[in-house]
């Protein structure tokens, strides 16, 4: 479990990254534009993106709505072992949980990624 400082820092980084990246459905935004859409002061958003100000839940929901993402996408508590623990730990955990077949297939997938395999289903 990460501490509060790291939690808000990661959330801030994700918001900043989404704001600056844009997609084919959504243009890049300035802090002022996002702040207005999310009902925040621009200065508050600046601190939130730096992780120096706590993000209220209602603002989290509004920001997720602006980006058309799930609020969970902004929260670094994603339930994917690999995101936090690394590939080796995923494999170890799968084997410990009695899932050697999944572990083997997972290794195959990850190896495929590393060798640059593309979709050939």
């Amino acid at each position, binding site marked *: 479990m990460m501490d509060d400082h790291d939690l808000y820092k990661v959330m801030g980084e994700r918001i900043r990254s989404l704001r600056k990246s844009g997609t084919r*459905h959504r243009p890049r935004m300035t802090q002022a534009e996002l702040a207005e859409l999310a009902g925040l002061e621009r200065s508050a958003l600046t601190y939130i993106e730096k992780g120096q100000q706590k993000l209220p839940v209602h603002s989290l929901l509004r920001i997720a709505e602006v980006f058309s993402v799930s609020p969970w996408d902004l929260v670094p508590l994603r339930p994917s072992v*690999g*995101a936090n623990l690394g590939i080796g730990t995923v494999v170890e955990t799968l084997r410990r949980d009695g899932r050697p077949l999944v572990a083997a297939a997972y290794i195959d997938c990850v190896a495929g*990624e590393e060798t640059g395999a593309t*979709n050939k*289903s």
Partner: protein
Amino acid sequence: MLQTSLESLVQQILDSCSLVSPPIDLDAVAHHLEVNIKSVELEDDISGFLVAGQGRTAARVNARHQATHQRWAKAQLLGYRALFSHAPTEHRFILDTNLALLRRTDALETGSWKAAEYSATPVERSDARQLALALLMPSKLLMAETVRHDPTSELALAELARKFDVSSVALMLRLLQLGIVQPAA
């Protein structure tokens, strides 16, 4: 995600793949979404999993399961991928022990979700499930077919399920969702 957004996302995918008739070719969808998807032997209680990261995505479904269930699992795993606006750069591993169509009304998904699990979040699971239904039975195609086949007849339902290559339960859920049928009083 709103149902209208999901339907529109599915339509975009179908248009990109030039898929205009049932059954939907999931391998073509996988190719379009750049997902390396295969059937392999997995433990019996596992429907499938998806691994994403560094702009690449791979998925595996359980070859030990019935073909219809494998197809459902494939659709749902592709649903997860379609929900990402782009291939995630962060490593993600979604393992689903229960790519189920139904859940008990007394089992709140949020209550069973734990951060330590490999699975997706409740919102992602729900969206992926809805997307899978829409992908396997696109609204336009299903509505067109129900003009030809009366969906209140059991024989016609069996024919529709065969045509879309889905289970009768999945078909019924989709028909109810689109408001094409309702339970008889």
